[in-house]
């Protein structure tokens, strides 16, 4: 019996359930508290800063020798813009930190911050694409006179001829409004100076502790060895906590300056204003189709509002360049013309959020398929059957190579499970009673577990991708696995323990995974991009295989057997075909304490390194909704997911990732929107304004699995962190569009709020009472 494939309850949970979690705010005891003084204006020149007569207040002028955050992308079209840690000349987005107040408690620091007056000469802010790209637009940054920070272009030879000879061209203009990853725990950090060593320890709620150490020490001009970064229990990240923010640089600077301990625990308003936003995109596409529904060519103009700065380390290229490269999704066509721009504005920086570009590009391709099907008189499932990729490896027009997947099979399984003809009958019956039911299909790929080979193509100054793992079995036979990934809710420690147990032969409760501490773990890239089970899991497996090999050698030596005949299981090394066995702890003890008998180096300590090119998970989502045409409200009746993430290590955890991802996708599709007014004030600064779904909006999912084995992953597992969020918006919005098809309205904006749905119905070609 293997541990892989079992829904083992998570090893992480007992502490979290008992209220004994260890989050950043729990480290603040004894610290001075820090409050940032933030710009109330979206854009302007700083004329002066008045500080109160008493109290600790620092501004950018005090940060002598502290450099800006400067993400690097080696592309000729990239306009590098440095982000000052605390600006002294001008502010470029509302909520930008300008000064910092320090006091004995958070309340007193807030009192002090209120006495700081930042005198700003206002400038009319540039908030959206149209304003930023206007011919006479003011430059948000002098370094980027045209307000474009990055731009990708491609046109395949033969594109124009293919479009000209196509049977039909289907056009779409889609918009994703600005959204927030909104982890339930906001950002925060506690920095402590150690007089004995001169080092600072920064405990922070982050997804990439090593990256943060590099970024902060680069800004401060100190060696990395002077800083230890610890990610304790992290209350959700979803990408928002994988960038370096100025606040963390200030915290480390303050700890060194004050030779003490400082804490900053942001509030929800700060998180909405000044952490990172996402999804603010406008895509215009034209698909050229043959009469039988075959997609022949795609033209795309993709704009991403990346906000005021480029995020570190992945840069503002992350959204526009992924959209550029991966828009074709799971569809087979060879002619592609694309222009993708990252546009800078006086808004909060955009940074990765679960799915990155793909929720919007899946929405785009899936709307395109539905619209083309309607226009060509083909069934919406049939048009996908005609166009989904089925031969692997598949090379997309942008050169992305897809390994083996089950795109068509997953859709067929979902379609069969849902029973579409039965739905259509119910839909027709409901319409006779004035009720609008709709069904939406979404098929998509989720690129996961990509290492340096793929990241290198993005030409970032910092190329992430590999993972290292150090595995030690101690003399008592317990295993410690030190990983460079930095899980924060994914249950990775449990999944890795299951992987290790199957190799080494001890139970998962004897495997302790250590993460999120730069003093205790090998340099790694943290947890993001559906990568950890593939890459960190791969490295863990390689280390565990090496440890198991050594255990077998020791066992063979001590039991005078052949190494090939040793099996490690249930805590024992057994010799095949005999009743000879030794407990693994005895082997471990011998490795350390009787090494002279073994003729090999003492101890059991192995490393694993893995840097794959990556793989693709795939899935099909089908959603059924009912739209209330009077209120514009959408109720999700049913949601089916057929997921193929390769070998499933822990089914309960995998389904949990899918369910959580779909819930976020539902929020993104229907409710969540960050709104600036015309003056650049953010209107959505509380959870009464920004609306993630609750238990009433998210249905129980029906999840089915397929299992395509990929040679691209040593664990045979593909990643699964983002898929739910990638596919759900398209399924929900296609369902809404289907429900409203009698009105002839289009659903082109996400979120499709009641207000937008009502407006679409009001402006419909067919009146509601027709």
């Amino acid at each position, binding site marked *: 019996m293997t541990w892989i494939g079992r829904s083992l309850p998570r090893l992480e949970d007992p502490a979290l359930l008992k209220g004994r979690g260890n989050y950043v705010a729990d480290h603040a005891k004894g610290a001075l508290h820090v409050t940032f003084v933030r710009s109330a204006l979206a854009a302007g020149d700083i004329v002066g800063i008045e500080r109160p007569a008493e109290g600790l207040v620092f501004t950018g002028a005090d940060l002598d020798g502290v450099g800006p955050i400067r993400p690097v992308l080696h592309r000729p079209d990239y306009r590098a813009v440095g982000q000052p840690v605390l600006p002294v000349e001008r502010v470029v987005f509302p909520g930008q930190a300008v000064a910092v107040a320090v006091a004995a408690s958070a309340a007193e620091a807030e009192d002090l911050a209120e006495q700081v007056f930042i005198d700003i000469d206002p400038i009319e802010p540039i908030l959206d694409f149209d304003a930023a790209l206007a011919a006479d637009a003011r430059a948000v940054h002098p370094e980027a006179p045209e307000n474009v920070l990055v731009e990708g272009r491609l046109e395949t030879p033969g594109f124009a001829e293919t479009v000209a000879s196509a049977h039909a061209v289907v056009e779409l203009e889609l918009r994703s409004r600005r959204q927030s990853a909104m982890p339930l725990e906001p950002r925060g950090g506690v920095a402590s100076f150690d007089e004995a060593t001169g080092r600072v320890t920064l405990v922070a709620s982050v997804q990439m502790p090593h990256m943060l150490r590099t970024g902060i020490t680069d800004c401060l001009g100190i060696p990395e060895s002077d800083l230890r970064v610890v990610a304790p229990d992290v209350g959700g990240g979803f990408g928002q906590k994988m960038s370096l923010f100025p606040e963390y640089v200030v915290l480390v600077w303050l700890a060194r300056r004050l030779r003490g301990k400082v804490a900053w625990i942001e509030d*929800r308003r700060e998180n909405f204003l000044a952490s990172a936003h996402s999804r603010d995109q406008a895509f215009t596409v034209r698909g050229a189709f043959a009469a039988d529904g075959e997609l022949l060519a795609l033209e795309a103009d993709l704009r991403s509002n990346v906000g005021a700065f480029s995020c570190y380390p992945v840069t503002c290229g992350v959204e526009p360049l992924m959209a550029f490269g991966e828009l074709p999704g799971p569809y087979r066509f060879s002619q592609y013309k694309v222009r993708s721009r990252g546009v800078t504005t006086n808004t909060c920086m955009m940074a990765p959020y679960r799915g990155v570009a793909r929720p919007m590009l899946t929405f785009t391709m899936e709307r395109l398929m539905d619209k083309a099907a309607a226009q060509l008189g083909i069934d919406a499932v049939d048009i996908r059957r005609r166009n989904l990729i089925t031969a692997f490896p598949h090379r997309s027009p942008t050169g992305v190579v897809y390994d083996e997947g089950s795109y068509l099979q997953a859709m067929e399984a979902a379609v069969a499970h849902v029973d579409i003809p039965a739905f259509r009958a119910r839909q027709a019956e409901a319409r006779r009673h004035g009720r609008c039911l709709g069904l939406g299909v979404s098929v998509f790929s989720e690129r996961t577990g990509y290492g340096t080979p793929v990241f290198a193509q993005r030409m970032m100054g910092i190329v992430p991708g590999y993972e290292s793992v150090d595995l030690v079995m101690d003399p008592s036979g317990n295993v410690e696995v030190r990983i460079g990934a930095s899980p924060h809710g994914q249950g990775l420690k449990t999944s890795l323990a299951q992987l290790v147990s199957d190799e080494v032969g001890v139970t998962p409760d004897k495997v302790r995974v250590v993460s999120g501490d730069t003093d205790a773990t090998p340099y790694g890239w943290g947890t993001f991009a559906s990568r950890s089970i593939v890459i960190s899991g791969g490295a863990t497996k390689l280390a565990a295989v090496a440890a198991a090999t050594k255990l077998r050698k020791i066992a063979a030596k001590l039991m005078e057997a052949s190494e090939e005949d040793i099996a490690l299981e249930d805590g024992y090394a057994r010799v095949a075909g005999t009743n000879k066995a030794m407990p693994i702890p005895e082997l471990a003890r011998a490795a350390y304490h009787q090494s002279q008998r073994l003729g090999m180096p003492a101890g059991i300590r192995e490393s694993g390194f893995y840097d794959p090119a990556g793989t693709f998970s795939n899935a099909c989502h089908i959603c059924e909704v009912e739209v209330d045409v009077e209120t514009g409200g959408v109720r999700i009746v049913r949601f089916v997911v057929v997921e193929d993430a390769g070998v499933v290590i822990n089914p309960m955890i995998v389904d949990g990732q899918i369910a959580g991802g779909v819930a976020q996708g539902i929020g993104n599709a229907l409710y969540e929107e960050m709104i600036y007014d015309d003056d650049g004030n953010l209107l959505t600064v509380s959870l009464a304004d920004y609306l993630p779904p609750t238990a009433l909006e998210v249905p129980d999912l029906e999840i089915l699995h397929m299992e395509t084995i990929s040679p691209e992953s040593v664990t045979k597992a593909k990643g699964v962190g983002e898929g739910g969020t990638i596919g759900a918006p398209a399924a929900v919005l296609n369902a809404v569009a289907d429900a409203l098809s009698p009105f002839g309205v289009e659903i082109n904006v996400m979120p499709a709020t009641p207000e937008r749905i009502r407006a679409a119905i009001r402006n419909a070609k067919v009146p509601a009472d027709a």
Partner: protein
Amino acid sequence: MPDKIAITLDVNGKSYDVNVEPRRSLADVLREDCGLTGTHLGCEHGVCGACTVLVDGRPVRACLMFGVQAEGKAIRTVEGLADGDVLHPLQKAFWENHGLQCGFCTPGFLMLAVGALEENPAMSEAELRDVLSSNLCRCTGYQNIVKAVRLAADEMRARRA
């Protein structure tokens, strides 16, 4: 700085003598003065429910109540649920059914559910969903939370019977 007031709080059956500013929220008093950091703060404006505790048996947003208002009342927090290593039926159900991921909302959901089930252990599915919609979770998509609470309710009913 406003003057501090000496109060005594009854938390999980234990008495805490603390000296707090009148403006300090119950959540801050629990976390910083009583050292009970299991109660979490996700929004500090009463929407997310991560700070939910029981005050005289009823679920309360600890971020919307002042510490001084809680004097003389029986406060229960997540730290009081388990008996040593023996988990409360709700904690056990959350564990077995993957009702948590990052764990940040979990104490609030547990206390919300304890309060609701102690008041009405026989809630319908719709009532249960309605009560659980009081709090936000960003990780799980709720279905395992709902499932865990339903199963725990069954067990709590069975124990009473």
